[in-house]
C-alpha cells in the first residue's frame, strides 16, 4: 500500500547477532554490519578524545574521511565506519 510516511523498520531482515567487545564491554551486533552502526545502536558515541583539549569525538563523516571514529583492532587503527563486525571482534577505543 502507498503510505505517505512509510516505516520500513519491520520489513528489514538482518543476519543473526554475534558478540564483540568494546573497551572490554560485551555487545551484540548483526554480523557484517559496520562497527559504527553497531555502536550507534548501543548508544556508544564517544570513541576518541581530541588531541588539544581532550574533548569527546565520534562518528562524523561516516565515509572514511574525517578519521574521528577510528578505533584499535588487533593493534591496527581503523575507521569504525569501514569495519564490519565479526564474532569476537575486540575493539579498543582511543579515549584517553
Amino acid at each position, binding site marked *: 500500500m502507498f503510505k*505517505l*510516511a*512509510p*516505516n*520500513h*523498520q519491520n*520489513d*528489514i*531482515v*538482518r*543476519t543473526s547477532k554475534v558478540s564483540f567487545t568494546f573497551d572490554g564491554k560485551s555487545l551484540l*551486533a*548483526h*554480523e*557484517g*554490519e*559496520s562497527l*559504527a*552502526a553497531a555502536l*550507534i*545502536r548501543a548508544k556508544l*558515541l*564517544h*570513541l576518541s578524545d*581530541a*588531541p*588539544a*583539549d581532550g*574533548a*569527546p*569525538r*565520534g*562518528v*562524523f*563523516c*561516516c*565515509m*572514511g*574521511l*574525517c*578519521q*574521528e571514529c*577510528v578505533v584499535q583492532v588487533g593493534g*591496527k*587503527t581503523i575507521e569504525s*565506519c*569501514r569495519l*564490519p*563486525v565479526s564474532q569476537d571482534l575486540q575493539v579498543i577505543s582511543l579515549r584517553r
Partner: protein
Amino acid sequence: MITDTDIAVIGAGPAGCNAALIAAEYDFSVVMLDEQASPGGQVWREKSPAILHAPETPESVAGESIRNAISQSNVSHLSGVRVWHIERSIDAFIIHYESAGVSISLNCRCLIIATGAREYVQPIPGWTLPGVVGMAGATSIFKQDLIPMGSKMVVSGTGPLAFFVAAEQQRLGGKVAAVLTSNTFLDWMKALPAMILRPGLLFRGLRWITALYVNRIPIYWGHTVTRVEGECSVSRVEFKKIGKDWSPQGEPSFIDCDCVSLGGGLISAFESFQLAGISLEHRRDLGGWIPKAEQDGRTNVGGCFVCGDGAGIRGSLAAQTHGKLAGLSAVVFLGAEINHPIDELRREHTRAASFGEAMSKLSIPRPGLSKLTTAQTVVCRCEGITRAEIEDEINLGAQSMTSVKSGVRAGMGPCGGKFCQTAITEFIAKAKSCPVSEIVPPTARPPLRPVSVNTLAGDFDYSDLPISKPSPL
C-alpha cells in the same frame, strides 16, 4: 596482480562506473579502483552484508543495476583499495594504492578521475560532539546499515538533502524532532523551473516533505542550528532565524535531541586532481574548487580526464552521462574510433546538469554564514584549533592556506584538511577583503588517505640498508 592497464578509473560511483563500462566496450583494458566493498559510490552505496532483505529504494535499484553491469563487464574492479598517490611519467600515470595493508603501484596510459564529492559543514559551537554527523554522512549509514541515527534527530542544512535525511530517518524507524533549512520557500520557487523538467525527482522531494507533515514534524524555513549543546554527547540544539545573507538573527530557540545532522552542500574532492597536475578553478555555483575541464572531461593534462560530482556538483543523474563522455574521451585519446552518439550524450548531460545545478545553487554559501563560526569554535577538528587562533595567525601575516597550515597546523591532521579548508578560505578572504577565488587551496600532498608507515615501508628491512665499509683511520 595487475601492474599495467590502458585505462585506470579512480572512483566507482555513477560517473566512474559509467566511464569504465563504456571504455571497456572498446576492448581496452580498464581497471576501476574504489575504496568501498562494491561499486555505487556514496549515492548508490550498497547495503552491508548484515542486511538479508530490505524494501527497495531508487538508490538501491540503481546501485544493483550498475553493480550487475560491472560484474558482467570486462572492467577489472579493485574494491576496498585506497588510492594514496598519483604520479606522472612522460607517457603514463602511476597510481599508488593500498590494498589489505600493502602498497601497490599501477601504471596506466590514460587516467579517469571520478572521486566524487565530500560534504561541507560550517563549523558551529559544539559541532565536534559525538552525535553530530554530516547530512551526507547520515545517508551513508542509512544506505549501508539501514538504521536510524539516535532516537531523536534534528536536521539542519541546505538543499534537498535535509529532507531526504529526515525522510530516511523516519522510514528506518527513527524520530525527527525538527528540520531546519537555510533555504526559504522563495529559494525553492526559484529552483522550480529546473525541477518541473524532472517530475519524478520533484515528486519524490514532495513525498519527503509530506512525510514530515504527516508526522507533524516542524519545518523551519530560513533557520539554522547555531549551537550544539551537551557534555559527552548531544543533548539539545540552539537555533535561530537567518537573514537573507544567512547571518543569524534574533533570539535563540532550543530543541532537545540526541543526534544532529548538519550539512552545507557538497564540495568536490579535488585533491586527486591536484596530484595529477590538473588546474583548478573556483566555481561557487558548483561547490567551490573544481578541475578546469571541458564537458567531455578533457583537462590540461593530456590523457587525464575527469567526470562526476568531483568535476562540479551536478548530481548523480548528470554524473552518469558525464562518466560516459569522459570514458569516450579516454578511448579517443588512445586512438580508437567511437560509435556512440557523442552529441546526443552531450545534450543529455546538459539537461541532467541543469537539474543538479539548480539543486547546487541552494547550497551556495552566503556572506553571513561564517558568522555561525564564533571565535571559540573549533574549526580544525583534528588538531582542535579555534577560529580565533586561525584568525590571529592570519592577522600576523599568514595570508594563504599554505601559511595558515604550516603556522597553526590547521589542516595538518589525519583528515588532511578536508573538513576545515573551506571555512579557513573564507576567513582569509574576509581578512584580505578579496574574493575566495583568490585564496587557492594548499598544495596537495600524498597520502590522499591515511596510510600506515608499515604499508609504505613494504617488505623493506633495516638490514637492507646499504652500509658502506668505514674508511680506514
